[in-house]
């Protein structure tokens, strides 16, 4: 089988990114070989000046457009997942990201304000989801970030989130 051909077309018609696992299992190839195929495809695309490439991390791969033509593609850019998200919603998102799984109460406590509507907004956007309940009386719902969140953050797992300190090493000096 021509792996290059089949893998590139599966990436084209897939709905979202494809886990490497899928190719490894179906084609009985190893990860090295798979990454080599990705690279071969990317070299071809680059050499021939086509405006897209296979973007992959440790977990999955997808065909995406190159960053250098963003401006030209703006008519085709889907609406941002952030569109209209307020600062409170972003705050809430960052708390869920770093404290997950986390209850509404904990989020509200950290923010100092009731956070239900922010959580709902983020859930409706698909950035966070209910991931279980806490094993205490009342069984409060736990929230976690979603696969979409990882994709949007361009990371393959929440372990790759930047360490908190990196954002603002300045705070301590104040």
């Amino acid at each position: 089988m021509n792996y290059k051909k089949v893998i590139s077309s599966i990436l084209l018609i897939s709905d979202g990114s494809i886990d490497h696992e899928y190719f490894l299992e179906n084609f009985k190839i190893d990860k090295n070989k798979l990454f080599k195929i990705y690279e071969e495809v990317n070299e071809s695309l680059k050499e021939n000046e086509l405006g897209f490439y296979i973007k992959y991390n440790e977990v999955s791969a997808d065909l995406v457009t190159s960053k250098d033509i963003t401006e030209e593609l703006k008519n085709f850019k889907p609406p941002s997942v952030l569109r209209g998200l307020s600062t409170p919603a972003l705050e809430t998102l960052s708390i869920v990201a770093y404290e997950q799984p986390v209850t509404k109460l904990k989020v509200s406590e950290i923010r100092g304000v009731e956070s239900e509507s922010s959580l709902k907004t983020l859930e409706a956007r698909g950035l966070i989801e209910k991931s279980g309940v806490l094993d205490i009386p009342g069984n409060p719902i736990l929230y976690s970030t979603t696969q979409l969140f990882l994709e949007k953050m361009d990371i393959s797992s929440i372990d790759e989130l930047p360490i908190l300190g990196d954002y603002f090493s300045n705070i301590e000096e104040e």
Partner: protein
Amino acid sequence: MEINYLIENLKSLLIKYSSDKTQVEENLFELFSSFQTKEGNQNIENFAEFVLLASSLFEIKARRMLPQDDDVEWMDEVEILKDKDLAFARLLQFRAFSEIGIAMASRIKNSENQIKAFKYYQTKSLFPRPDVNYIIERDKFFSVAKEVFTRYKTIEGFKHIDKDLPDLQIAIDQFLKIIDSRLTTSFEEILRDLNSSREAIAFFLALLEAVRWGFVKADQDSIGITIEKSYEL
């Protein structure tokens, strides 16, 4: 003229902070009274937006996020809380997350510059029907439906979430740019270069954020608010 009055009021909320609650209350009372006197105002939407912003400011104020005068008054207040350390930790935690939220947003914006292939519809011609394994849980489906329509019914209640408020991030960037070029300026001076009340609101919020992050120092005297670049960072 109205807008100037409102900005004056907001300024007193910001700067003339007093631990005396009645001062804040008075300011808010005045602010809201001024809306009432504008009965039948066609710009009610603008005012509604303003009330929203005013209450956000008040909220920030209430959280004692702004540095006070030299005597570090807020420390005393934190003392009042049962667990001072916990309160302080939360304060820091909140500041942290607030900032991280913005950092994450810019990262997401950046990654959205790469657009994914969208050709899933082609699988329709390849397979009779997309063979995706999923089930629709009836109960979940109905509870989601109920929730979404309930929300729609009460959408007035949280319309502000998606309301097209002035882009705070842009205002902050512009604000910091001005401060970087002028080093010392005043809020009034910045207002002079603006074209709309919306921009003024955005810049006012930007000023708050900048003070909160310690990028600038702001002082009010009889003339207005003096803003100075902070070099402590």
